[in-house]
């Protein structure tokens, strides 16, 4: 309980401190409101325009979720294939690094041209960002699974599939989730860049761009806050999923204790 309190309280204190510093800078240096808003004005700009913002936020979330799922699945599949087949690993690894050295912004325009203004290019961009840490971590994890554990499975004649689901998959859960958390954090940034290159109707990125060109700095900063909150929320969701799916990392006993001692003793 105390631990939970602390793990919620401390981040809140940190965020509070950032808000305070921001407020002090704006007030202390007499920053004009069309240069940078006060933190509360930025928050206010979000709430007072929530009716307009909400559908845009939903749109961005949708892109992020789809892109994340595609990226995660692709990342895992690619990771497994690369871990299992050495020639593929050798051929694809340089391309993996290459893929991340391509500036996302330079990638977005051609993608839109090819895929149109639908949600597709956004999904591709988000997936492009998400798959990389997932693949790298899965490859790394799978190639470092304890060889003796794998031998144990072989000794008892386990099939490759059971070896995979019973040994290899759980063994890579930690690096896999690390990769997913990294991907989750950066996913929104990718979606925003893709939105800027073209959306039918409005988008969160365009809303911000528009506010920016109209000198509505409170709305600009407010939108940034919203984007950040989506990113953090997505990160926390994945982190929560990890806690749920890997109970052995934090607990000493399984949640549902089975009825023990069928012999009736003690």
């Amino acid at each position, binding site marked *: 309980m105390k631990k939970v309190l602390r793990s919620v309280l401390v981040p809140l204190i940190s965020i509070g401190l950032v808000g305070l510093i921001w407020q002090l800078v704006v007030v202390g240096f007499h920053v004009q409101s069309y240069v940078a808003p006060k933190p509360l004005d930025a928050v206010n700009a979000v709430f007072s325009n929530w009716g307009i913002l909400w559908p845009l936020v939903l749109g961005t979330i949708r892109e992020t979720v789809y892109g994340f799922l595609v990226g995660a699945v692709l990342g895992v599949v690619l990771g497994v294939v690369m871990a299992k087949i050495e020639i593929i690993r050798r051929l694809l690894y340089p391309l993996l690094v290459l893929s991340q050295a391509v500036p996302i912004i330079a990638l977005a325009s051609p993608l839109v041209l090819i895929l149109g203004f639908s949600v597709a290019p956004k999904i591709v961009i988000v997936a492009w960002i998400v798959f990389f840490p997932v693949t790298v971590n899965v490859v790394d994890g799978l190639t470092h699974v304890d060889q003796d554990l794998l031998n144990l499975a072989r000794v*008892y004649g386990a*099939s490759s599939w*059971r070896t995979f689901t019973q040994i290899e998959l*759980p063994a890579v859960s930690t690096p896999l989730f690390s990769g997913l958390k990294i991907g989750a954090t950066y996913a929104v940034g990718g979606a925003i860049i893709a939105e800027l290159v073209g959306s039918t109707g409005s988008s969160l990125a365009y809303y911000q761009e528009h506010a920016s060109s109209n000198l509505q700095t409170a709305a600009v900063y407010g939108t940034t806050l919203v984007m950040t909150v989506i990113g953090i929320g997505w990160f926390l969701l994945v982190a929560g999923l990890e806690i749920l799916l890997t109970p052995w990392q934090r607990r000493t006993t399984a949640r549902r204790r089975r009825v023990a*001692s*069928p012999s009736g*003793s003690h």
Partner: protein
Amino acid sequence: MLVGKLGVVCAALLEIESIGKTFGATTVLAPTSLRVEEGSFVSIVGPSGCGKSTLFNIVAGLLSPDAGGEVTVSGTSILGRSGHVGYMLQKDLLVPWRTVEDNITMVARLTRRVTEEDRREAREIATRYGLGEFLSHYPKALSGGMRQRVAFMRTLVAHQPLLLLDEPFGALDAQTRLEMQSWLLDVWRETGRTVLFVTHDVDESIFLSDRIVVMSPRPGRVVADLTNPLARPRTLDILTDPRFIEMKSTILHLLHSRENS
């Protein structure tokens, strides 16, 4: 010929016939033969690198030996085929993401659907050997000795008549090791399995076994196959028994003269 061979093999559960292993240019294991009678406890001692684990890996079906050898269990060849022995290493190899109960049933989980019967058996054996309280614990909550016990129970419920134990107590401290040795002897007596045991600890090999096989440095081969004259059950007191001391001295000299050759 087959009948003749079967006739010879019948008395032995495991028969290893001129099994050798060469990695690249180095021969690790010279062609080696060994018989293990049903229900017996046989230890192998030998210098590090003489191919003990290699031999076990061949019997377990993880490695294929050089051509010309044969391994049979109950008269049936198991060369290059897995699923015919129980195998346990110095590392306990428990999976951290499974509870004690699920680790004990791991072999079933690796080969088929786990049944309620499997679970019942795991609970029963764990309770019988003092781990009933820990059935829903994850391995990290256990001490080294408890983990080795779980690993051994997992090996037991695989229901193989032959158990290969490769230095299972090597990582334990001396006191825990003593406890585990007594415990292993209890279980062995109660379940009637056949055990082939590798250890570096000469005291341990004498304390536990019916026969002690001494191997030479690489390329490994059997240099002595000693029958243990000490009666069972054995207690700490056998350490001062002259037959124990003589046996230990013989083994140590066998190991040591080879070492400096």
